[in-house]
């Protein structure tokens, strides 16, 4: 029984690209895989999942208690299906990191976090120490494998597939002791950081919430996502969902442009997989220049308006 189950991530309308990245990881395992979509009125999402290349069957579990991404209820549902699978994969996003360890513990197994490469069905590579070391992980072949897939390390699988969608009724009991209240979204309509091809990010040097508009304007001009260092988020210049780094988002855009970000190790961790890193900073000794492909020692308040003119 070598078979993988992928937990789909979505916002109720759209499938998150992390799901197609998990599919690439499952394909690297050289195994057939199914996808489970949990939520309410998620038939559209299930159709999107069915288009992922290589998927055998998409199971659509539509139930009121699965409406919101509460790990207690979602984990119980996955565990109810686990018997048919040797591997269960979810994304390394906050949804997956909340959910997958709960599934692993209910199944009595350790979890592999952040698979960055597959060497065999039970042999993986993953980063630790904020990406400062890469290790080989061998999981026991006698046990179920539960893992999160490091989304920044994988390309999304193609979407030319046409898997059958099968509806299933929820079988797990509902936990009444966790209640979803609300989600406040910080970002506007800009591309999602974890999937954007380009990202423009600002740091503490922006010095105020108003000045962060420079970052947004430049981002909008080239259709980029907007990111930030922890220092900028801590100072309340921008919302938390913009934080890039070890404890924020790990991203892998083709182009990453950092303005006024010094480049703490924890931030570098989040951008190491970017195609091209551009750093603009007044301080020529800023550590960000050690990883930058293109560096410019200059004041961002001069450079950004010039860039806006040149790129308009």
């Amino acid at each position, binding site marked *: 029984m070598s078979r993988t189950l992928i937990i789909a991530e979505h916002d109720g309308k759209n499938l998150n690209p992390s799901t197609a990245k998990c599919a690439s990881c499952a394909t690297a395992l050289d195994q057939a895989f199914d996808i489970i979509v949990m939520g309410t009125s998620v038939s559209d999402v299930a159709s999107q999942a069915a288009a992922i290349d290589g998927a055998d069957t998409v199971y659509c579990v539509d139930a009121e208690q699965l409406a919101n991404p*509460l*790990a207690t209820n979602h984990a119980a549902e996955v565990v109810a299906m686990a018997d048919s699978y040797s591997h269960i994969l979810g994304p390394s996003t*906050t*949804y997956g*990191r*909340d*959910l*997958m*360890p*709960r599934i*692993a*513990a209910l199944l*009595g*197994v*350790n*979890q592999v*976090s*952040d698979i960055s490469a597959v060497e065999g069905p039970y042999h993986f590579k993953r980063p*630790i*120490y*904020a990406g*400062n*070391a*890469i*290790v080989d*992980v*061998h*999981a*026991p072949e006698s046990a179920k494998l539960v893992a999160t897939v490091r989304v920044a390390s994988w390309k999304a699988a193609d979407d030319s597939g046409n898997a059958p969608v099968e509806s299933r009724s929820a079988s797990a009991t509902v936990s009444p*002791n*966790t*209640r979803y*209240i*609300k*989600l*406040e979204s910080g970002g506007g309509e800009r591309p999602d950081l974890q999937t954007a091809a380009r990202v423009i990010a600002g740091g503490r040097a922006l010095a105020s919430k108003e000045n962060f508009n420079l970052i947004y304007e430049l981002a909008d001009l080239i259709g980029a996502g907007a990111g930030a260092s*922890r220092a900028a988020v*801590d100072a309340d210049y921008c919302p*938390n*969902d913009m934080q890039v780094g070890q*404890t924020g*988002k790990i991203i892998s855009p083709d*182009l990453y442009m950092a303005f006024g970000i010094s480049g703490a*190790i*924890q931030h570098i961790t989040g951008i190491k997989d970017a*195609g*091209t*890193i*551009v750093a603009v900073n007044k301080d020529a000794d800023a550590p960000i*220049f050690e*990883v930058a492909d*293109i*560096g*410019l*020692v*200059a004041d961002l308040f*001069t450079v950004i308006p010039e*860039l806006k003119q*040149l*790129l308009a």
Partner: protein
Amino acid sequence: MKILVGIKRVVDYNVRIRVKSDGSGVDTDGVKMSINPFDEIALEEALRIREAGLAEEVIVVSMGGNECQQQLRTGLAMGADRAIQVNTGDKLQPLTIARAFLKLVEKEQPGLVLLGKQAIDDDNSQTAQMLAALWDRPQATFASGMSLSGDTATVVREVDAGLETIEVDLPAVVSVDLRLNEPRFVKLPDIMKAKRKPLDVIGMDELGVTAENDLQISHYTPPPARGKGIMVEDAAQLVAELKNRGLV
């Protein structure tokens, strides 16, 4: 109500990590060790809850050899009432830690368990969720805000899409994120006082927990280095370079 707080001894977050040349691990000889920063935030939150009169006792727990007593003493100096060391020479994985924690939970009957959202060495981010699962209680991970009212906790979670608010019935496990609070500094008299606070040592074997299905970790390597970059003189050169590479 009692609050149980887990603290892990890790390489200090300011230390630049070096992989040993034989690939057997990371060099920790003579390296500064500290409480995992997220765990310190968890402890600070527990202390604030107690100071607000909503809890009577804060217990810090660490699992490892006697060296982790150093971090437990720091936790006591911050203000925890007592400490428990689960003594073991083994390198523990999250499932084993969660199982051992469950034994302590059964003994101490806390109303709340506070843990860091991840340790900055293994970056696993698993223990809180696993404990909640084994205990069959709610979990609220990545907390950047929380308030208690009667038998429920309202927790604001930092998620990829923004800030999510959930409500959980106590007892529950909460894992904390960076922006929940700023931990206090320890003062010298508190360090002296901490020496007299109780620190119990329990063997992992006494808890009846043994590791199962462990992952084997090997072949530590440094990450691949990025190629050397170039410097440009001004915005115009930068744009020309980006256009050259087909990036804009």
